């Protein structure tokens, strides 16, 4: 709690300063200062409540549970100050007091200055010392980013130089260590990236884009050979141990206007692998190091009123962590220390029942787990179509149709678990993990009323859907989701939104239904009531309503959201990355503001 005082010490002098309005020159000084300063705060507070139905509040982390703190708050304060044109300093202070919200990485404890940087920027150069975020290509080799809802922040602390040779060629070089909670990885990262648009370089006028890119990412981490305490003569042979993992990516993209194609091929250098957790404590495999690869191919075709895109991706052993220890099976439930970003390429849905069973990408290599797995292969197709105004389906205002379908399976491979070897096929699909077909139709009937209909049919490996881990078995979970929504607009910005949902499945918790009602008073204020109800649960006591009531208030630079209710437990996913959240009940308050 005392650490909260630290940010206060920074802010309070400023406030004291602003209150001294006696002297005019002082006031202009303040104005000057404030015009160069940018401050923002995000605060997510939750008060957990014991629930008659779910039982008393429990934190799954035992040491946190012992502290019995039911009011928790995650806070993020950003301060950026532009010293002179082009030169900026900034910091991020994070505060998790008295403890982080339930199911966040337990290393987020207390208050700390987590990020700080100084940046110089002009037309050609962009130089940063301190923390920075970065992405090379589609992130298959490197992506440093922040996702507060999931508690992820792998910002790199070090140095980065970006140089725009001209409008068409830019290069980036970086060095540093990833953030892991309040700490930093011991592994050093080196990166280099070049992007060019060849139409500018070779003066091609016929097409809008012909792009080429190349990336290098190196990771270096010291290795101390483990000592066998039972047999000291058994010495770990560390010849050829990959302390440095060299990875490369090539990208090529072409856009003909209507048709576009983007490709990326990445190779991850040989890296150490752990033995299975099922065989006792996982150990680094001696003398067996494995490289990985990724192929990404996207094509699209668009004309006015119609858009089509398809993606194919093959991942083999593409998990890439900065800390070797965190790649150990079971050692990293919070997904910290990722260097790259390999999200599930499926569609993220808006409706709560369509978010119960979520697919997560399977890039990892496990030779000894169950029957083994070495990666995933699959793809998805998206279609966007607008029925023209004045046609039978289009009506007076036009009708919009969106279709998405995807199919993902394990890479077909054979495993020699005794000798720690495996062999994968290039383009052969192995055991099916996920398939999905969904569509959405939106129609505006008249000036006041518009409606939406959504349908989804999906099949997913049952254990992957429930626990987030693939388990080889024939058990699949099949589910159908249907959602209907209508919005009625009234005068002066008032409107009502009504939403009805249903999910049917014969597996796991079986059928659900749900409804939502939202009333908008004006653009600043809205209130909502939602409920999802697991009426199909075999256990009558678990046929629970997850009822929520809340509201949003937003004005200029402030946004406040307050909610009271019961949250469904399970995988909580944002952008194809998931964390496990237990069922809980409480009041939450999210505040967001900007200076």
């Amino acid at each position, binding site marked *: *709690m005392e650490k*909260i*005082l630290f*940010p206060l010490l920074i*802010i*309070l002098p400023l*406030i004291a300063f*602003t209150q001294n309005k006696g002297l005019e020159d002082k006031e202009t000084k303040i104005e000057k200062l*404030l*015009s160069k*300063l*940018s401050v923002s*705060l*995000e*605060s997510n507070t939750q008060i957990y409540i014991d629930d008659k139905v779910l039982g008393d509040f429990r934190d799954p982390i035992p040491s946190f549970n012992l502290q019995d703190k039911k009011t928790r708050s995650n806070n993020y304060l*950003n301060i950026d100050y532009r010293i002179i044109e082009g030169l900026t300093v900034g910091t991020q202070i994070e505060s998790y*007091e008295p403890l982080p919200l339930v199911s966040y990485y337990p290393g987020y404890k207390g208050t700390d200055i987590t990020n700080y940087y100084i940046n110089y920027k002009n037309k050609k150069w*962009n130089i940063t010392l301190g923390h920075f975020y*970065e*992405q090379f290509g589609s*992130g*298959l080799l490197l*992506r440093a*980013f*922040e996702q507060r809802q999931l508690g992820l922040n792998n910002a790199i602390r070090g140095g980065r130089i970006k140089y725009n040779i001209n409008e068409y060629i830019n290069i980036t070089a970086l060095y540093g260590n990833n953030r892991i909670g309040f700490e930093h990885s011991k592994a050093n990262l080196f990166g280099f990236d070049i*992007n060019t*648009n060849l139409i500018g370089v070779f003066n091609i006028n016929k097409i809008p*884009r012909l792009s080429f890119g190349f990336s290098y990412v190196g990771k270096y981490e010291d290795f101390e050979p483990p000592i066998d305490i039972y047999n000291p003569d058994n010495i770990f042979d560390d010849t050829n141990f990959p302390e440095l993992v060299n990875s490369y990516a090539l990208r090529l993209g072409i856009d003909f206007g209507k048709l*576009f194609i983007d490709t990326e091929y990445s190779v991850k250098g040989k890296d150490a692998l752990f033995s299975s957790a099922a065989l006792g404590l996982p150990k680094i495999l001696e003398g067996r190091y494995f490289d990985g690869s990724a192929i990404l191919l996207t094509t*699209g*075709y*668009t004309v*006015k009123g*119609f*858009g089509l*895109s398809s*993606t194919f991706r093959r991942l083999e052993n593409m998990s890439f962590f900065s800390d070797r220890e965190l790649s150990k099976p079971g050692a990293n439930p919070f997904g910290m220390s990722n260097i790259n970003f390999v*999200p*599930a*390429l499926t569609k*993220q849905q*808006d409706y709560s029942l369509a978010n119960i069973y979520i697919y997560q990408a399977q890039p990892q290599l496990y030779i000894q787990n169950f029957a083994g797995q070495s990666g995933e292969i699959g793809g998805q197709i*998206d*279609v*966007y179509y*607008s029925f023209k105004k004045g046609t039978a389906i289009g009506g007076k205002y036009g009708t919009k149709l*969106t279709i998405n379908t995807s199919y993902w399976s394990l890479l077909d491979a054979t495993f020699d678990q005794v000798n720690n070897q495996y062999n994968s096929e290039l383009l052969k699909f192995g055991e099916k993990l996920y398939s999905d077909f969904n569509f959405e139709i939106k129609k505006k009937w008249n000036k006041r009323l518009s409606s939406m209909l959504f349908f989804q049919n999906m099949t997913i490996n049952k254990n992957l859907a429930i626990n987030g881990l693939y388990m080889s078995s024939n058990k699949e979970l099949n589910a159908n989701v249907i959602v209907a929504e209508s*919005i009625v*607009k009234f005068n002066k*910005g008032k*409107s009502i939104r009504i939403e009805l949902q249903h999910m049917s499945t014969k597996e796991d918790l079986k059928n659900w239904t749900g409804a939502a009602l939202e009333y908008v008073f004006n653009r600043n204020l*809205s209130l909502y009531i939602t409920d999802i109800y697991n009426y199909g649960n075999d256990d009558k006591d678990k046929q629970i309503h997850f009822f929520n009531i809340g509201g949003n208030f937003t004005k*200029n*630079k*402030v946004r406040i959201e307050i909610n009271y209710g019961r949250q469904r437990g399970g995988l909580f996913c944002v*952008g*194809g990355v998931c964390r496990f959240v237990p069922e809980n009940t409480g009041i939450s308050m999210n505040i*967001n503001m*900007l*200076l």
Partner: protein
Amino acid sequence: MKNLLLFTFSLISIISMSQGLLPTSDIKYMDGKITNIEKLAKKNDLVVISLWATWCAPCKNELDAINEVYIDWVEETGVKLYAVSVDDSRTINRVKPLVNGRNWGFTVLLDTNNELRRELNSPSIPLTILIKNGKIVYRHSGYTPGAEYDLYEKIKKYK
């Protein structure tokens, strides 16, 4: 908790005092060319920036609604709208087909690693900002049906 409240209160008390800086994070045109908000604001007196994503239903509703009246807005006020997609590599391939599929008539830009979104401190989208002569004069997050008319009132006010 008391400290937190005090801290929050202190921040609110200085919130109304400042104009804020125009963001300088790199964003990309669909053809890969790099630009930033500061540069875009220099091209036109009156600029609307809207942060959106292919997975955000209210964002698409807002841009659909603006799209229907955008030609009139431009004619009457000379405003220019830039819709900046914050889709990351998971969904970025949907941007172009969606934009064309929906016939949007404004410029769409890309903020793939969310650096602009972070600079604007916008965990929730949509976020709409109005820039007049290089200064942010209006900011609104969220979309409710009909809010595009309020935005237009602001645009006319600063014309």
